[in-house]
C-alpha cells in the first residue's frame, strides 16, 4: 500500500478494520499518527452530528400508527356497516342512529381521534413554544398572533394527525379549566361543520375560518368557551 493509497483509504473510512490498512499503519509511526488524527477527527464529527431527538418522538410515532390502523379497520368495517344498515332499514329502524358513527363532520372525527389516543395524550408533557406551534400551523396557512397567542400558554403536545386521510394538526394545552385539545383541519377537506358537539366523555366547539376548520375539545363538564374564544381571536390567516 503506497502513501497515497493509504491516505485515501483512511480518509474514506478511518475506522476501517481492513488488514492491509492496519498493517500499513502499524509498520510506520507517521502513518499511525495520521490514522489516529483522522480517528479523532471522526470522533469530533460524530459528536457534532449528535443533535437531540425531539421529546416523545417514539411515542408519537407509535400513536400515529395506532390511529392509522384504527382507521383502516374502520374503512374495512364499512361493508359490515352497510349490511347492518340495510337489515335495519328492512325492519324499519331509523337509519340515522346507525349511521351516526359514519358522519363526515369535524366533531365526530375530533372525538374519535381523542378516544383512540387518550392513553398517550394524558401523559404528554412537551413545551412547544408559540414559534414551534406556528411552524406547524404554517402548513395550513395560519398562525397564532405573537402577542394574543401567548395567552394560550405552551402546547404540551403538538403533532400532525390524520383525519380520514387528511393531514391535520393536533395541539394540546393546559388551560386553567383543564386539558384542551385544538384540532386544525384544512377547509378544502370539506368536513361538515358543527358548532357544538360532544359525547359522554368530551365536549367540543367548532370554529370555521376561510382556510381551516378548527375544533376545541375539553372534558365533559369543562367550560371551553373562554379557551375557544381565545383561539378564535388569536388565529390569523394569510390572505
Amino acid at each position, binding site marked *: 500500500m503506497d502513501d497515497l493509497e493509504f491516505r485515501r483509504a483512511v480518509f474514506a*473510512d*478511518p475506522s476501517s478494520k481492513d488488514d492491509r490498512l492496519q498493517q500499513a499503519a502499524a509498520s510506520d509511526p507517521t502513518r499511525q499518527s495520521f490514522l489516529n488524527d483522522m480517528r479523532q477527527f*471522526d470522533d469530533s*464529527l460524530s459528536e457534532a452530528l449528535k*443533535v437531540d431527538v425531539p421529546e416523545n418522538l417514539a411515542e408519537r410515532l407509535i400513536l400515529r*400508527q395506532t390511529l392509522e390502523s384504527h382507521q383502516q379497520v374502520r374503512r374495512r368495517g364499512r361493508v359490515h356497516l352497510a349490511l347492518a344498515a340495510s337489515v335495519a332499514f328492512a325492519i324499519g329502524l331509523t337509519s340515522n342512529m346507525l349511521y351516526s358513527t359514519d358522519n363526515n363532520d369535524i366533531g365526530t372525527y375530533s372525538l374519535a381521534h381523542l378516544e383512540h389516543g387518550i392513553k398517550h395524550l394524558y401523559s404528554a408533557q412537551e413545551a412547544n413554544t408559540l414559534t414551534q406551534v406556528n411552524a*406547524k400551523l*404554517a402548513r395550513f396557512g395560519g398562525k397564532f398572533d405573537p402577542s394574543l397567542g401567548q395567552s394560550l400558554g405552551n402546547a404540551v403536545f403538538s403533532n400532525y394527525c390524520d383525519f380520514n386521510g387528511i393531514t391535520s394538526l393536533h395541539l394540546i394545552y393546559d388551560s386553567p379549566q383543564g386539558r384542551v385539545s385544538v384540532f386544525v383541519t384544512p377547509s378544502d377537506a370539506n368536513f361538515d361543520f358543527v358548532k357544538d358537539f360532544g359525547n359522554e366523555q368530551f365536549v367540543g366547539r367548532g370554529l370555521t375560518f376561510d382556510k381551516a376548520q378548527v375544533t376545541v375539545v375539553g372534558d365533559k363538564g369543562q367550560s371551553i368557551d373562554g379557551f375557544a374564544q381565545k383561539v378564535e381571536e388569536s388565529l390569523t390567516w394569510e390572505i
Partner: protein
Amino acid sequence: MVFGGKKKDNVSVLSDMANKQKRYEALVKAYHGDIFRYAYWLVHDHAVAEDIVQETFLRAWKSLDSLKEQAKAKSWLITILRRENARRFERKQFNLVDIDDHQVVDDHALSTEATMEQKLIQRQIMKLAPEYREPLLLQVVGGFSGEEISDILELNKNTVMTRLFRARNQLKDNLESNDSVKGQYNG
C-alpha cells in the same frame, strides 16, 4: 362449521396484527433516534425532519411484511426515508416563511449544547454538496459499511469510497481555513 372456521381465521388475523404491532414498536424504539438524526442532517430543519420521519415510519408500518431480514431493518428505513424526502420536493412545497422562524429556534437549541468547534463542524457539513454529505452521514450517523452505503445509494462501492474521501478532505480543508478566521465568529 362455517362459523367455527371463520372464528379461527379471525383469531389468527388478530395475533398476526399483534405481532406486527410488536415488530413495529421494536423498530421505532431501536431506530427512531438514528433515523431522526439522519433526516435532520439531510434537511437541517427540526420540523421538516420530524415530518419526514413520521411519514417514513407510517410507510414502514404499511409495508412491514416486506421486511424479511431484521438485520437490514435500518438500511430499509433509510431507503424509505430517502424516498420520502424526494417525494417532499414533488409535493406542494411547505410554507417557507416559517421555516426561517424555525431555524432561529434550532440555532438557539444548538448554542446551549454544542461547543464552538461543533458549530463550525456542523456549518461545514451543511456546506458539503449533498452527494458528499449523504454517504458521510450514512457512515458516521448510520454506522453503515461501504457496501451497505453503496446498496442504499445505488452507487458502486468505489464511487462511494471516493465520495467519502472527498467529503472528509473538503471538511478538513474548510475547517482548517476557518481556523484562521475563528476569532471573527464571536456571535
